[in-house]
């Protein structure tokens, strides 16, 4: 018994991965992780997926985690391997995605000597991880591996790093199983305090203009949270909007759905936020893309805030009733309390509130000028949705205009189907994230809605998709611009388009073929459906070059420094209004 617990550090890593049910690791070898790679070679429980750049590994792990609810795992060597992971770690921290990154380190006796491929990995990754460890003794390794998974997955999820010097990977020690792992100083609270639940429900019952504002916390809490959210909306009849990260928790076809809110949210969602009297924030964090101008944010509302992280409470916006708990636990308790007290809302007030919302809806803020000759980007997403909605589909995106159009026009019915970089806004996230999603769901249709600029940041991971026969579809809305940069230059900088034109774009069809995949191009609205069908039908990884109107902009928009009721609407906005929408103070904001 004790005999089979004696093993090398590298063996412990694989043993711990298997013990935590890890099926896929995204990684790239190098000198300081060779012992771990040698163990990969000699087992078949954990599949290794070889990436082309370590940043790709981290985004794959994120896509994997977000689409499965499991922990994503990435592996990199010391020095440049570790530093290449920083973007992915910060991305996962900003969006609360559970990820364990294992890095190799130079042998302990060389640490601090500026050795080849040495860097202070725990120092560099400290501000972009929830926790990190440098393992100096092989007998601590198993415990730290278990703690790493525990910390990444529990409470508010996030990325962690375990940095393992090469001599520790070779050294023999005792493996301790994961049973009973606790970190004494870390005990996240998941069950709500009943007094706060009662106070929240009592406040809801007084509402005349209530609104649910939901976020990524609902997704992170698991499918049960989405189920309970739907039940609560059904029970109360309260309208609901969501952040970018929370799309899919409540179905877009649901009758209380107002669409996404925030900078590029719908008119009805933002106006409802501005005018509501009781706001129920479920797992969102009052991000600046949501609130706009803080002193004009929902000025007449009392706010309830459900969040698992106490530091989110009153960080940006002061709330009347905080409920510190896991979303599912909080919703379950609130529904039970609502039923127990036989609460109902003032029906008359609620129906006049909905009538008001109906008027805002009739503005049809997502409308755009359609065009017979040129593919409008909005139209492309609409057709993509129409042709894929009945399939088992997962969507990832890069960052920019295409991301906002995807959020506006692709209608999500279920949680965990939408992977996007919200908090950090990482261009280059979507392609590797799609690879990670496809690895977890080999039979599903996985589409990266991309832009021509973003996609080039991690295009090399297309080669990973080819190698592992992961038939991802890269649907590029190609307008030959960094569209969102250009849009802001038009808004803020007198239409001086400094460096935002995508000069020297590759031929994406040939590029796909060069990698060994399928390339498709479409330039005419009339040919779009057939081209999308061909993309879906292909059993191979596809790059779809969808040539869209070059100068289309993303509306509606709350210009920076403005309030929810000061939106720019799309179809009828003049160039002059665009040019003068943001005042001097707003220009300083991001």
């Amino acid at each position, binding site marked *: 018994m004790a005999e089979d617990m004696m093993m090398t550090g590298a063996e412990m890593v694989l043993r711990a991965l298997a013990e935590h049910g890890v099926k896929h690791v995204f990684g790239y070898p190098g000198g300081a992780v060779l012992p771990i790679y040698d163990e990969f070679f000699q087992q078949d429980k954990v599949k290794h997926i070889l990436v082309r750049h370590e940043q790709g590994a981290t985004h794959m792990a994120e896509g994997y985690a977000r689409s499965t609810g499991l922990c994503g795992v990435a592996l990199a060597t010391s020095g440049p391997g570790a530093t290449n992971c920083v973007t992915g770690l910060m991305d996962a921290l900003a969006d609360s995605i559970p990820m364990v990154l294992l890095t190799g380190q130079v042998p302990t006796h060389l640490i601090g000597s500026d050795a080849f491929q040495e860097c202070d990995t*725990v*120092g560099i990754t*400290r*501000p972009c991880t*929830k*926790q*990190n460890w*440098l393992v100096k003794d092989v007998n601590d390794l198993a415990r730290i591996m278990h703690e790493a998974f525990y*910390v990444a997955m529990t409470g*508010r999820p996030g990325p962690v790093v375990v940095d393992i010097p090469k001599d520790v990977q070779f050294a023999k020690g005792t493996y301790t199983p994961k049973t009973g792992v606790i*970190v*004494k*100083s*870390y005990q996240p609270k998941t069950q709500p305090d009943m007094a706060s639940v009662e106070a929240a429900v009592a406040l809801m019952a007084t509402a005349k203009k209530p609104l649910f504002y939901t976020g990524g916390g609902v997704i992170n809490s698991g499918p049960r949270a989405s189920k309970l959210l739907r039940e609560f909306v059904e029970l109360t009849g309260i309208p609901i909007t969501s952040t970018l990260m929370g799309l899919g928790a409540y179905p877009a076809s649901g009758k209380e759905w107002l669409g996404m809110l925030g900078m590029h949210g719908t008119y009805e969602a933002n106006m409802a936020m501005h005018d509501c009297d009781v706001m129920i924030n479920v797992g969102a964090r009052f991000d*600046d893309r949501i*609130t*706009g*101008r*803080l*002193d004009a944010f929902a000025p007449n509302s009392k706010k309830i805030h459900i969040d698992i*992280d*106490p*530091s989110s*409470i*009153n*960080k*940006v*916006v*002061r709330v009347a009733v905080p409920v510190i708990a896991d979303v599912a636990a909080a919703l379950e308790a609130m529904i039970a309390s609502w039923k127990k007290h036989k609460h109902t809302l003032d029906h008359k007030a609620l129906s006049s509130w909905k009538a008001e919302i109906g008027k805002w809806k009739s503005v049809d803020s997502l409308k755009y000028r359609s065009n017979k000759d040129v593919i409008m980007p909005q139209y492309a997403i609409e057709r993509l949705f129409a042709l894929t909605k009945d399939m088992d589909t997962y969507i990832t995106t890069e960052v920019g205009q295409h991301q906002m159009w995807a959020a506006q026009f692709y209608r999500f019915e279920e949680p965990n189907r939408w992977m996007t970089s919200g908090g950090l806004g990482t261009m280059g996230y979507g392609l590797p994230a799609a690879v990670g999603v496809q690895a977890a769901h080999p039979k599903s249709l996985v589409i990266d809605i991309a832009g021509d600029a973003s996609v080039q940041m991690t295009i090399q991971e297309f080669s990973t998709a080819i190698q592992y026969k992961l038939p991802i579809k890269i649907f590029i809305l190609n307008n030959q611009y960094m569209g969102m940069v250009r849009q802001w230059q038009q808004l803020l900088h007198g239409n001086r388009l400094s460096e935002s034109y995508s000069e020297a774009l590759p031929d994406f069809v040939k590029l796909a073929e060069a990698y060994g995949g399928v390339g498709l191009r479409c330039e005419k609205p009339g040919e779009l459906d057939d081209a999308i069908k061909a993309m879906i039908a292909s059993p191979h990884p596809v790059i779809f070059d969808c040539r869209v109107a070059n100068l289309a902009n993303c509306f509606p928009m709350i210009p*920076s*420094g403005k309030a929810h009721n000061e939106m720019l609407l799309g179809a009828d906005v003049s160039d002059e209004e665009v040019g003068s929408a943001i005042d001097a103070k707003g220009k300083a*904001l*991001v």
Partner: protein
Amino acid sequence: MNAHKEASGSAYFIDTKKLEVNTHTLAVVAENQPGVLARIIGLFAGRGYNIDSLTVSETEHEKHVSRFTIVTSGTAPVVAQIKAQLERMVLVHSVADLTLQGNFLARELAMVKVSGEGDKRVEALRLADAFRARVVDASTDSFVFELTGKPDKIDQFISLMVPLGLVEVSRTGVAAISRGLEAMKV
């Protein structure tokens, strides 16, 4: 950074109402593991909070527990946010805002080197006696005084030593503890 401008530290800070900035003394009990100090300092640096004083030492060797005393300044919401950010750290057991709880002791140790001759030397010794400072080193033309007390007492002693030939000062920073039976949880 922007923390002084608006409680939120959000991108949309707006300088409208000015909240009062106060000094708070926080006590933090954390695991004594590598990186804890760096993580705590990184939090203050990264989020633009102030550190007026920071002391740390292992307090319970068997349990591997360290105790930090951090003196910071900020508006009430900023200090509440600092406390929440410290509490969410994986290796932090508990955080107390001693200023908010009221009724606590804060002490600091200083070593103060003074050089001088004649009347100035006599006057320095006389003042040291009044402040209950001990002479821990002496030469024919210098003294090192050791002094403990509240930070403002030390400030006052140092300012009195300036005209008498102050050479240099080393201060430990504040250690603080609440009065009465209550203790922080580990």
